[in-house]
């Protein structure tokens, strides 16, 4: 009876369930604000806290660096008289030539600009779509460009061999651009005009020989034209600033690649002696700080060679940095090699390729391609680490900036140069890291 009555009374006394809360607006500006910044008590508190922190940090900095800054003055005293609590960027601007070129003589700085410009021009075709054989262009740049650049930067009499190689480098660059123009015009490349002639004598690889012939002719021509051309000798002691930083890091990263590839291959080799030699080198170098390697290069390396030999401090440092970067690069390359599926090795073996052919044409292209982002990352860290050479007294960007504070006009001015080079390094490194991240996304997308 009773159990039957209960549902009835419930039916009679209708109790509505509590209404649902209103829909949270997640669209529009207020919705966006609510979702991302002010959702809930703690979230709002966090937003306010971070905002206050940012305000406290950024406001004084912006006031100091922009609003109250002095851009033109001739000494620190003048800066202080114009605006006592603003940044004195005038010092950095006055020193900008030194910061970029070091103590390289002013009238000769065109050589640095030209050398760096040639390097950029050489690498530009790598970005063009119609150009093939980009690996060859890159390889030629790696092998020949340093000779041309060092010929320009060092000047003086550098011996006949150096002169010849520098001529070949220049000839190659000319040939490259001639070919590019011809390709875009839709005509035959320079070397191909010799092909029919060469085919009569050497039928195989006539195309390659055609290019080489043209290169040879051009080289001889250039070597002949510039035979009386001489540059004033500039000692590496006066190299400095951003120029030196770029030289050390650029040269080291380029040399680090072959060293790293050899060490990485050695580490995975079947031969125990080679393997242990590689492992020992990699692990020894990686377990010590870079600064100790640099100290070693300046204190211990002179003892390695007969004392009649004239050693160059910059060369010593570059060798040390190369070895150091090479050991790190070896681990990067090893990572790439490990990512290659075993089937690739088996396939190469089954079509009868030997070890070097397998590596050069099957494994390394894939491994290095996948490792480009990591290689860029190691380049960034190497680029940052070159500041360490200032500790052993090379006038790189860092030491040059520190020297502003002992200039009698700007005595005691520490902050502005440091901030300026920090910003410069940040721009360089941030751009490169963004580039490497974009590459990484691009490379993983294709898989």
């Amino acid at each position: 009876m009773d159990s039957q009555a209960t549902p009835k009374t419930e039916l009679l006394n209708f109790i509505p369930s509590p209404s649902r809360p209103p829909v949270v607006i997640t669209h529009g500006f207020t919705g966006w604000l609510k979702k991302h910044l002010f959702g809930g008590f703690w979230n709002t508190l966090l937003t306010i806290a971070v905002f206050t922190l940012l305000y406290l940090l950024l406001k004084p900095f912006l006031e100091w660096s922009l609003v109250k800054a002095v851009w033109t003055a001739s000494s620190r005293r003048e800066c202080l008289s114009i605006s006592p609590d603003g940044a004195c960027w005038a010092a950095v601007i006055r020193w900008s030539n030194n910061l970029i070129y070091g103590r390289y003589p002013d009238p000769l700085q065109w050589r640095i600009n030209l050398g760096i410009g040639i390097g950029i021009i050489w690498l530009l075709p790598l970005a063009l779509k119609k150009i093939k054989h980009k690996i060859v262009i890159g390889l030629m740049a790696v092998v020949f460009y340093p000779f041309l650049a060092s010929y320009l930067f060092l000047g003086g009499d550098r011996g006949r061999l150096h002169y010849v190689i520098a001529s070949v480098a220049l000839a190659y660059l000319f040939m490259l651009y001639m070919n590019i123009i011809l390709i875009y015009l839709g005509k035959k490349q320079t070397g191909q005009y010799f092909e029919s002639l060469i085919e009569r004598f050497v039928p195989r690889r006539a195309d390659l020989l055609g290019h080489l012939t043209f290169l040879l002719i051009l080289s001889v021509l250039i070597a002949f034209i510039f035979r009386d051309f001489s540059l004033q000798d500039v000692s590496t002691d006066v190299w400095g600033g951003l120029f030196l930083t770029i030289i050390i890091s650029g040269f080291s990263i380029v040399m680090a690649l072959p060293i790293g590839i050899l060490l990485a291959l050695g580490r995975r080799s079947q031969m125990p002696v080679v393997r242990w030699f590689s492992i020992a080198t990699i692990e020894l170098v990686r377990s010590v700080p870079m600064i100790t390697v640099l100290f070693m290069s300046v204190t211990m390396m002179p003892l390695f060679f007969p004392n009649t030999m004239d050693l160059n401090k910059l060369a010593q440092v570059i060798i040390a940095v190369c070895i150091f970067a090479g050991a790190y690069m070896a681990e990067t390359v090893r990572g790439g090699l490990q990512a290659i599926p075993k089937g690739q090795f088996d396939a190469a073996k089954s079509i009868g390729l030997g070890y070097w052919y397998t590596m050069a044409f099957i494994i390394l292209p894939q491994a290095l391609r996948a490792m480009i982002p990591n290689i860029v990352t190691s380049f960034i860290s190497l680029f940052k680490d070159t500041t360490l050479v200032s500790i052993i007294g090379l006038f790189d960007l860092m030491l040059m900036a520190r020297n502003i504070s002992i200039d009698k006009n700007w005595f005691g001015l520490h902050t502005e140069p440091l901030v300026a080079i920090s910003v410069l390094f940040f721009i360089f490194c941030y751009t490169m890291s963004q580039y490497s991240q974009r590459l990484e996304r691009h490379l993983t997308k294709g898989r």
Partner: protein
Amino acid sequence: MLDSKDRQVSSNRTLKKLIHDSAVRSKVIQVLVVVVTFSIGYYLFSNISQNLRQMELPFGFGFITSTAGFDVSWSLIPYDPSMSYGRVYLVGIVNTLVLSAFIILFSTLLGFVVGIMRLSRNLLVAQFAKWYVEFFRNVPLLIQIVFWFIVVFSTLPAPRQSFGIFDALFLNNRGFYFPSPVFQPGFVWTAIVGALALICFIFLKRSSNRFRKSTGKNMRYYYQLLLALLAVVTVVFIGTGKPLDWTLPSLQGFNFEGGGFIPTAFAAAFVAMTIYRSASIGETVRAGIQSIDTGQLEAATAIGFPPFKTLRFIVIPQAARAILPPLINLWLTIVKESSLAVAIGFPELVSVFMQTSLNQTGRAIEIVLMVMGFYMCASLTISFLLNQYNKRIQMQEG
């Protein structure tokens, strides 16, 4: 006639074997590597011995017992200029280890905060963390160290105008001063009892964990037992007559006397490297947390796990597996990077040994070997220990 032709063929065959038989070839290459390495080594060695003979500095580690004669600005172990180079080496090692230990501890803590902030749902917090990471990791560490030293810590007020808190902590352009404990002889008892209590605590913790695993319940009287342990230590401490004093730093003339002291160089190196590495550790932590499958979080929510417990028991144990290997590498990097403090004159190993001692004695080879040897030992030890720990963590899977 026939004989000579035969010989020619067989010599041809051995030549071919050298190039085409992989077993023979690999032996040849290995012998070549050994020969080349040894001949380069011999060349360098003969040069070294000749150079050393000319400089009249025969190779040997005898110099480490001779008197150093220079002062080290900050040392945690007793040192004065009448002590030997061996002692200087030790001072450098202790300073390096202390600096890197501090950096490792604080950068890891800060790095975790940064990593979690980067994953915050709050846009401002996430962006703030992102730009923090981007800024600090893209500016060379050396610039940051010098910046903190020159621009921040060296411009602090002189000792007479130093910032003070409670008349116990002082900060000025020489360094940071703080009260330091002075242990009386009677403190031995407290130390012994304290150590015993610690052992008991570890034992208790383990048995309580075991109890919870087997029964699913918490151990009874667990917290009471912990309190009892603490009480015993306190009673012994008071019973032996409170054998612990504090010395406060106080201004004597132009400088502070008494108390503990950290030079500005230490503080600058510590702050700069902690911030610099917290950025990279933050990235590691973020990647580790992001590597966890979202299904894990959804599952935790579905069975009604509260958010904090989800973090503690679901997220962190799984993320640790992804985070630990790169984190170990970063810690090793920190130990190596602490040598950059040489740039601001902090007396760590490279500074006192590779710079000052090397300049005084001229013994480049011995000193370089000793310094590199230390870093190698440190690296190998840390990576060995942590790899063991890492293995234990990774084993729990499956």
